[in-house]
């Protein structure tokens, strides 16, 4: 008999949550004082942090639109966080009302908040699970209720991998997820990288995130590209997120300032 893997103590609004800090960067008010203190410290250390979050969010929007256009109707968004503006289901279901979306997050407050947002939406749901337990995600009854793994699925792990250290073997997690997917499925990844930024900002950012439950793990472009093992990268490959199919040429300028690298891979049949 296993004890539950979380307890009421886990829900500590005095402790900054990466999901709610992200909401703060995006201009939301779904956050508590502790989140704002940490997020402000981050902005002080890395003044562009809000822009990075926005760029990543915009990447997510363009990717979902692209996948909808490619015919994808099932989305599994792991590490979805606080469902603030521009959620996957908003983008996807606006374009295709029958699109099914399952959000997965480990943060119980983010999950409870998502439940409230999704109440009454028959084609979208949220489950509390950990990216590091892909089998549990794939077999979760709420996941299997909405997602038919015999059909193509877009698995999205956006702005999450930098919270998964090497010791948790994210490559194995992604392999497990890949094994469950039908040909024609997609993998969407983005994560903070240090290919261009100075060391001082990185050190500061790492210091800020050590106060959360999710310390930072910065990776290089090569490392992120390796995570697409088994997938064929969609053009333009792994790039700074503003460079991924920008709407206007100007919006891709100074793209490396966005710090986030992102890419989309397709599982060929």
């Amino acid at each position: 008999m296993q004890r539950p893997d979380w307890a009421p103590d886990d829900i500590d609004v005095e402790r900054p949550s990466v999901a709610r800090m992200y909401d703060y960067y995006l201009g939301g008010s779904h956050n508590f004082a502790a989140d704002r203190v940490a997020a402000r410290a981050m902005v002080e250390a890395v003044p562009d942090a809000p822009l990075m979050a926005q760029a990543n969010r915009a990447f997510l929007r363009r990717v979902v639109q692209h996948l909808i256009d490619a015919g994808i109707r099932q989305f599994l968004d792991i590490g979805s966080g606080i469902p603030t503006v521009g959620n996957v289901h908003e983008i996807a279901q606006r374009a295709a009302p029958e699109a099914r979306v399952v959000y997965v997050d480990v943060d119980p407050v983010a999950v409870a908040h998502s439940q409230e947002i999704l109440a009454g939406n028959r084609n979208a749901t949220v489950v509390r699970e950990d990216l590091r337990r892909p089998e549990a995600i794939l077999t979760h009854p709420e996941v299997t209720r909405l997602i038919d793994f015999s059909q193509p699925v877009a698995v999205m792990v956006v702005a999450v991998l930098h919270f998964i250290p090497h010791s948790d073997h994210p490559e194995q997690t992604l392999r497990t997820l890949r094994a469950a997917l039908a040909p024609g499925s997609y993998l969407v990844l983005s994560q903070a990288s240090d290919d261009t930024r100075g060391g001082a900002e990185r050190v500061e950012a790492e210091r800020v995130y050590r106060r959360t439950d999710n310390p930072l793990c910065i990776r290089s472009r090569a490392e992120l590209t390796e995570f697409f093992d088994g997938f064929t990268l969609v053009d333009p490959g792994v790039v700074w997120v503003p460079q991924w199919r920008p709407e206007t040429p100007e919006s891709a300028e100074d793209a490396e300032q966005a710090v986030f690298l992102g890419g989309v891979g397709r599982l060929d049949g």
Partner: protein
Amino acid sequence: MGEPAASGASCPGTFARAWAKAVSGTSYLPMTQAQLEELLQRLTHRLAAALRAEPFDPRVGHQVGAELVAAHIASAEGLGRTVEVIQLRLLRDLGLVGDDISDRLARLLATITTGYARALRDRTLDEQESIRRAAMVARAQAERALRDSESRFRHQATHDPLTDLPNRTLFTERLAAAINAPGRGADRVGVCFLDLDRFKVVNDSLGHQLGDALLVQMAQRLRRALGEHLVARLGGDEFVILVERTGGTDDVVKAAEAALAAVSEPALVDGHELSVTASVGIVERPVAGTTPGELMRAADSTLHWAKAAGGARWALFDPARHRTELARYALSAAIPAALDRGEFFLDYQPLTSLRDGTLLGVEALVRWRHPELGVLRPDSFIGLAEETGLIVRLGGWVLAEACREAESWGADGGPAPFVSVNLAVRQVNRPDLVQEVRGLLAQTGLPPQRLQLEITESTMMSAGAEDPVRALRALNDLGVRIAIDDFGTGYSNLAYLRDLPVTELKMAGEFVTGLRAPQVDPASRTDERILASLVSLAHALDLTVTAEGVETADQADLLRAIGCDAGQGWHFGRPAPAARILEQIR
């Protein structure tokens, strides 16, 4: 992009594009640049209309401010840049002119910022409320999950996984509560221990799966039949029922009978119709002065009484019987230490020739000089020792001690009778018996002819007694005498007497007891005839015969007349230390 081409004085497209550029990046905007420009274009039209309208309507500015926030252009920077771009470019880009146009623009900006600030405040408060609600919901969910898992955990810890009945832990808790904190009118309590009869046979012959299915069915029946009483499974086929607030024994007997009735209805398990019975041990007593452990032990031993009486019944606890059993148990537990402390000693009883009255041999009889109970005779502890297996050690000591003492007899020229020692089944079955006896003889120097081993008929008859027979033959070959003890009380199978290495038969005392009044009692005549036939049969097989339990001179005379070789009993001498017996002979 789809906006109308800029034309001369009025160019809303240009303005909207400038506005879009000003606000982008101030917060995350969940739309494409084109969608943003489209939205701002629409708002620009409304602003332009408001600037021209007569009278001036402040609501338009409020609405535009609110729409900006609703479209997620909702940050301090977004507002600042919006004010800036309107102030700097709106009139010019739209080619608006008029006497009071700058007044109107100021008023419009005031209403936009007012509407914007109101909407942003509302939105902030709403979001704060919703995240706080989410935290509360999350905490409630986590607490419920913890409670659920705790109660599941508790259930699993206190219930038997097979039958889902309460287990020993829960039962003990409830019993302890009933005893230690009795409620009003609950000053007596009862316990029934129930065990299915011959359940092992079901398991062994039909398999464990079927056995388990039977247990599940029995558990369901017991639960149904016993209603409010707690039924628990202790393990295996053992169940226990707690009867609280009893008024007396009858209440518990009623529960036991209900349980027995429930069990005994034919059970259909996997196509087999099984007829099951059970035994129940019942204890019922005041809660004051008892403990859960005591009560459970008492119920357990009472269950064994029901079993020993044949099963399919209940038995009621009897304190006197329980005390006796406890004493017996304590006695058997004390044997090893008593051996170590040398509390055992031997007495001997003469085996006397009926022909000439000489002392042929003596039978060694073990005594226990118990520090509290005084000298104990073998019938109070040998049975226990046989049950527990301690007989091997005790019997070994008796054999060694008898050999040691007997060796010295006759050394001073007096009589040197053989010594006869009883061997228990377990001793005879030991593979190293021959080696042990040979070792003792060598060690003590006792000639083998002066050792007699007494075994019972049943020992010889025990199934598969091939090895013991070989051992006895080997001993007999050494010269050791082998006697059959208590002959005539068992099967009295004569066939084996011919083939086995036996030297002597000892006739059971029952036959001799019957020889009291030969002239009047026809039964006595029968015993006499049986004895006479056995003696002549034994002689035909070349065996000597000793009669046990000879108490009178008349009996001795009769036995002598029949041709019996030797006698043992009070008539010839009571058991006594060797020295005294040898003394009397002189």
